[in-house]
Structures are given as C-alpha cells and as structure tokens.
C-alpha cells in the first residue's frame, strides 16, 4: 500500500534524516534517505522509522528526542515535505 501511494505522486517524495550523538550511536547511522509514503508530521516520520527497523525502534523508545527541520528546532507536529532535512537528536549539552 505505501508503495502504491508513493508511486501515484509525480516525483517520489524523499527526505534526508540525520542522527546525532547518543542517538546516532544507538542507530549506527548518521544519515539516511527516507521515502515518504504520504505527507507526514515529524511524529509520523518517527513511527515510520521505528516500523522499518527494530534498531531504530529500540533507539527511539524511552528516549527524549529533539527535532530540527531544515536546521530549525521544531515540534513533532511539524509537517515534513519532500527535500527537507530532518535532524533527530537527544537534548543538547553544549556550552
């Protein structure tokens, strides 16, 4: 079903997902390309990522995750569009 939805759209909607710090280490990747089966909010992207990989599922479970969309901190109800850069990471600890 998701594949049919994606195929129905003119260009395949893709986003870049970045992981940082403890989340990057837990997932084992710093970056991946994700095909959106439908317009999604960030919370939907998180669910999709968890569904695709048990490692991601485990990494996200019970962890506070912040999101930056195109390098701006945003809430998880923000809609994601094709071509966006979505970064997911633990609460920051710089300074």
């Amino acid at each position, binding site marked *: 079903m998701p594949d049919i939805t994606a195929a129905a759209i003119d260009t395949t909607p893709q986003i870049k997902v970045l992981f*940082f710090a403890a989340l990057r280490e837990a997932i084992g990747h710093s970056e991946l390309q994700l095909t959106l089966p439908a317009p999604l909010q960030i919370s939907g992207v998180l669910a999709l990522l968890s569904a695709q990989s048990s490692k991601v599922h485990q990494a996200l479970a019970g962890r506070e995750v912040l999101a930056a969309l195109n390098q701006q901190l945003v809430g998880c109800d923000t809609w994601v569009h094709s071509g966006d850069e979505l*970064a997911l*990471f633990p*609460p*920051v600890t*710089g*300074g």
Partner: protein
Amino acid sequence: MPATINCRVQPEDFALDHEYQALQRQDCGAVVLFCGLVREQFQPQDGPQDMPQSGDTLQALELEHYPGMTEQSIRAIAGQAVKRFDLRAITVIHRIGLLPLGAQIVLVGVAAPHRSDAFAACDMMMDYLKNQVPLWKKVHFSTSTAWADAKASDKQALNRWQTAEQNTAEN
C-alpha cells in the same frame, strides 16, 4: 546602534585576551566575558555524581555538533541579545572535537555602554546556548565514555528569559 557580532565554531583554541581587545569600543564602559572550561568530573557509579567513588576521572570532553545549524543558531541567539539589550559587540566562540581537562570550551563576550545590559546579555546567551544549540558532550574517562545528560537546571534557567519576553510582549 548596530552591534558587531562575531560567532565561530571551531576545533582550535582561542585567546581570551585577543577577543577581549577586539570587543572594546570607545562608547562601552562594560565588557562581560564568560568562559566555559573542561572541569574535573568523576565517573558516576553507585553514589551520587561528582563524587570520587570510582577513581576514574574525566580525561577529555568530546564535542559533537550539527555543522551549519550550530553556527546559524548561535548567530540567532546573538541577534536576539542585540534586539533585547543595548549592546555594541558580541563574540561567541564554541569549540568542537576532543578537549582535554582544563581546556577552554566556550567564550561568550559582550561589550555594552552599561554593565546591566552586558551581564544580562551574556547570561541569557549562555542559557540559550545550553538549550538550543546542537552540541553534545561525550565524557571520556580512562576506561569508558558516557554522553553527558542535559540538566533540568539549564532548562529552568532558560525560562527566566522566556517569561520576561512574554511579559514584555504583554505590557
């Protein structure tokens, strides 16, 4: 009046004295500088943190960041400070990479005509830096590593400025 803003994210160390000289202006009676340093830390074990229980101590901090967003968000914080306070010059330098015990991590420097603006701006920028800039610390002990936890006190500190912002907007 326009303020000079100088923001850098770099692995290289910085010279406080050089940055202090660069901040000075003829119409500024106040310069406030904050320097964050890698301080000693004990490996958390059974007991409370910061207690020398395990014998294993911090060797270095490793600073990871989100290239592009880090610089941009630091610049945004400096821009907010300039809007809110009467400032003439701001310097923010944040180091990345592996920083040994005692190393300088961050400098926030502000020059202003009057000290109240300089203090408040420097304090506020540090609170935003701690909460909204994509930087993460990994603590290297001699036999293990651990990601630093975000502190509730840092989040609370940020609220001071956001409440004041809302109050200003309401009045």
